[in-house]
């Protein structure tokens, strides 16, 4: 029911990208050797500050690695149009193109879920 509600709020243009995305995901996910374009590598890595390396969050934010791609797109679109409330994600979602959101969805869906490492604290030496 929730998905239908969200879909109803998507714009026509968003929906085109969204439909296109489903087609992509079927093919992309079947091939593990796909390497993201430099554009998406850079953009996806920028998410690491809050969501961890390759989307493997150490906690406190969503794990994006291995996330169902359609779920990713729906959430980003919901942040964008305000149907899902957020603290900062609406700012990021609005700054990206629909294509970038689709490509990020594919990229993160491809990433393996691993246990991320926390660097151990040290006693300040100086």
């Amino acid at each position, binding site marked *: 029911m929730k998905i239908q509600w969200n879909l109803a709020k998507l714009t026509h243009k968003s929906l085109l990208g969204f439909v296109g995305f489903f087609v*992509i995901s079927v093919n992309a996910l079947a091939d593990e050797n796909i390497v993201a374009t430099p554009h998406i590598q850079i953009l996806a890595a920028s998410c690491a500050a809050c969501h961890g390396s390759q989307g493997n969050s150490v906690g406190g934010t969503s794990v994006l690695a291995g996330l169902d791609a359609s779920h990713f797109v729906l959430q980003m679109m919901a942040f964008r149009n305000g149907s899902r409330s957020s603290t900062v994600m609406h700012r990021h979602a*609005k700054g990206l193109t629909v294509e970038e959101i689709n490509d990020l969805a594919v990229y993160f869906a491809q990433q393996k879920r691993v246990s991320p*490492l926390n660097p151990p604290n040290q006693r300040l030496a100086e």
Partner: protein
Amino acid sequence: MAIDRRDFLKIAASTALFTVPLISKATLSQAKGRVVVIGGGYAGATVAKYLRIWSNGGLDVIVVEPRTQFVSCPLSNLVLGGNKNINDLTFGYDLLKSNHGIQWINDEVISIDASSRVVKMNQSELTYDRLVIAPGIDFMYEQLPMLQSSQSQEEVPHAWKAGAQTVNLRKKLESMKDGGVFVMSIPKAPYRCPPGPYERVCQVAFYLKNNKPNSKIIVLDANAEIVSKKGLFTKVWAEMYAGMIDYRPNSSVVDVDVAAKIVKTEFESVKANVLNIIPPQRAGKIAQILGASNVDKRWCEVDFLTYESKVVQNVHIIGDSVSASLPKSAHMATSQARVCANAIVALMSEQAPDATPVFANTCYSYVSDKLAMHVANVYRYDSAKKIMVSAEGGGVSDKPSELEGNYAQAWAKNIWSDVLT
């Protein structure tokens, strides 16, 4: 392949074409050679890691860093508020080095010959194919020569590079009597971490309100107004720390009596019990050694597609030293580092770097032990202007909240995990 991905999206969307494989396999990087990285802060550590990852181990990466520990500037104001210990922000480089095969030289750079591509340190020298410098900031003590000596900086800490200086300032606040005056000065922008000084005011106010409620804070800001998150800080100061903070704009420090703790502006002399001068800043010393700080003799002009210096060939500059309308933040330093790493891998395998890089910046400020607020933006490369510009949708919180306080902690844990492991 005649149909690129973009076209395919449109075709797929309009014709429901399900059978053609969509993304051609990109070739793995063939980049070979040696990249030397000077500096192991947020920018330097990140560029080293991603150079190794994106070259599939093809590039030799050597980091030169004199310090043996990484101490985070983000969250260090919380040490002043008594809400973090400096050891919570202190880390080693072991996991970063071993997980990614990064070579590490614990030494100080003394000179660089960019024409023969040689970096000289105290103990040894290195040649490079490409050099990345991430030198952070340097203080312009020629404007405040009385603060040049390490003894003066013990007496009047800047605490603008996290570590012993942060601990020093915290101890001085702990020893201050109730009813004392904490005086802090803010240099003219640009400087490292635009909202940082105002967050510091909140943290010191939080500590004083709960422990020494008769004390006062005087803020001498060289800028005409609060540089970042102005509305939010103004409201917090009025509502949470009413009567405690005396904010004085257009107040540049011209002289400091270190022993007496008296600071002079063009208009007045102010006596402090604890004095915190944040000096004016420029690109780090390595950038000066290289002659790469060509903008106002302070900041470094770069190509925003590669972060290569506009004045020194084969040298890339990332982080706070870069001249840009981008905030000098840790997240920004890592974002620049990733564009730079990706571009170097492309250039060293004779491919074109991303022509339209896009990245994000999220910056939280704590106004108490638990409440935080953000400024967040996506930045896109503008091909006509050849600079990074803010995309639609950026902005600041409506108000500080505990939820954002939790996200700020998550930000720190995740960026440390990404940068240091």
